[in-house]
């Protein structure tokens, strides 16, 4: 495949930026903590990791920022963080209509490549677990939502998982994939979470536990769904040429995909690199529902179209010591819905070799991260 030339540039934008620091707040169920506090904890951890001080940060990028949406889906906006940490910014962006949650990283890279910023603080804060409890539970969140797409489902009793269930049923019918095969995504994620102190669900889980789990919307059960949590993740994206950058620790952004759609986004990512799917050492794919993980695996060509069921059967290939380790920190299924940023954090941890008991053997050199679903998608290929 040819590497797409970048209009007006001799080098691609990705070459201009590196990830210099990453960090997270406490992550958990119903923490009841101020989301700005979670945001500050994550931001300051990322800054410390990058060896930077707040005065060095001149850009902020986030998804979705301060906006009205379902309770707890966002815990801080750009201007909240500017005021909170006393930042002096040259550039910032935030918004809900990015190409997936990782669109906020894509934006940061572009701003750096364009010379608008040197060190961009990127963050994502959620406090859905606490906010949903205060709002009276998950069903009331859906009942009150003004989203037009949900309006079409209301007279039929539909909720968010309905859409996952319809996609999963169709996929199973088209490909012959079984619930026992889907179970492996949940079981392997749980096994990885058991080795990650920051994950929210760490008790051992078996395929039988999955098959006996409460059904939410056949064929989708509770263990096919990720778990709402409170928590924040922050990443510092820096100008690769900046004096403060320690190249031995920096994580390189090999390529980005920001097109609308699983396949479109993944194709864009592969069009901007000479690496191929077989080079991927670890896959931190978006797993809001297990079927979304399957979609991403196939779009990224990590598994063959329609053949993910047999590939993940038994779980050995996607385990930590398998040929394609997936969701090594527990993913959103067992680690908590940090909404794309949890996957990004875990990719950085693995590339830096900081995974401890869940470190992929041999320290991976290439990680793929994906976020979002349907027409709201983005992905990153990261290297050491």
């Amino acid at each position, binding site marked *: 495949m040819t590497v797409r030339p970048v209009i007006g540039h001799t080098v691609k934008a990705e070459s201009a930026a590196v990830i210099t620091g990453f960090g997270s707040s406490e992550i958990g169920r119903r923490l009841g903590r101020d989301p700005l506090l979670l945001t500050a904890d994550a931001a300051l951890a990322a800054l410390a990791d990058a060896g930077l001080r707040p005065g060095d940060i001149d850009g902020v990028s986030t998804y979705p920022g301060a906006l009205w949406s379902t309770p707890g889906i966002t815990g801080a906006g750009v201007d909240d963080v500017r005021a909170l940490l006393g930042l002096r910014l040259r550039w910032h962006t935030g918004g809900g209509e990015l190409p997936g949650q990782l669109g906020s990283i894509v934006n940061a890279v572009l701003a750096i490549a364009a010379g608008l910023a040197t060190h961009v603080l990127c963050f994502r804060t959620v406090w859905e677990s606490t906010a949903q409890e205060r709002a009276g539970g998950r*069903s009331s969140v*859906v*009942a009150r939502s003004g989203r*037009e797409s949900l*309006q*079409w*489902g*209301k*007279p*039929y*009793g*539909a*909720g968010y*998982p*309905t859409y996952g*269930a*319809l*996609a999963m*049923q*169709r996929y199973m*019918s088209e490909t012959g994939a079984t619930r026992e095969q889907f179970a492996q995504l949940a079981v392997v994620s749980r096994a990885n979470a058991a080795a990650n102190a920051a994950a929210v669900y760490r008790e051992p889980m078996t395929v039988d536990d999955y098959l006996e789990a*409460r*059904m*939410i*919307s*056949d*064929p*989708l059960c509770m263990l096919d769904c990720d778990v709402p949590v409170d928590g924040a993740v922050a990443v510092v994206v820096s100008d690769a040429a900046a004096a403060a950058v320690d190249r031995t620790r920096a994580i390189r952004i090999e390529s980005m995909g920001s097109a609308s759609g699983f396949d479109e986004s993944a194709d864009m990512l592969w069009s901007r690199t000479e690496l191929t799917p077989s080079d991927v050492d670890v896959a931190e794919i978006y797993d809001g529902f297990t079927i979304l993980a399957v979609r991403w695996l196939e779009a990224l060509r990590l598994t063959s179209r329609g053949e993910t069921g047999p590939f993940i059967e038994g779980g050995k290939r996607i385990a930590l010591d398998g040929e394609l380790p997936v969701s090594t920190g527990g993913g959103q299924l067992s680690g908590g819905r940090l909404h794309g940023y949890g996957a990004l954090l875990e990719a950085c941890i693995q590339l830096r070799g900081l995974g401890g008991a869940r470190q992929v053997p041999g320290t991976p050199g290439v990680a793929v991260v994906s976020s979002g679903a349907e027409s709201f998608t983005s992905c990153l290929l990261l290297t050491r």
Partner: protein
Amino acid sequence: MTERPTPAISERTAAFWTGGANGELLIARCQACGWWLHPPLPVCRRCHGRDIRPEAASGHGTVWSFTINRYQWSPSMPPPQVIAEVELAEQPGLRLLTSVVGCDEVTIGMPVRVRFEQAGDAWIPVFGP
């Protein structure tokens, strides 16, 4: 007792939600090129025509996918319900989110036809054998 929540009825969605009063499944259709659009939009995605009007569809379709919902998302809708995507006979890919009612078994590809259940001012299109 199941009572379907009344959908928000806007200028754009009124025909779809009220056509059932006359037994009609009204779907937005481009008058220039004949393309059916659901959800209804004021511009045709195929030819960018602006003359979009609701037209009665045949009401025939096939189950594209289905699920048995077991979670109570609405206080007036105690589960279970069969929620489905039905592809209408008029056009490949023309799919509605709906319920399948009046049968013991649902399968992908099963032929279904529309019927309506009243909910306040709305007539909710549902499908059965």
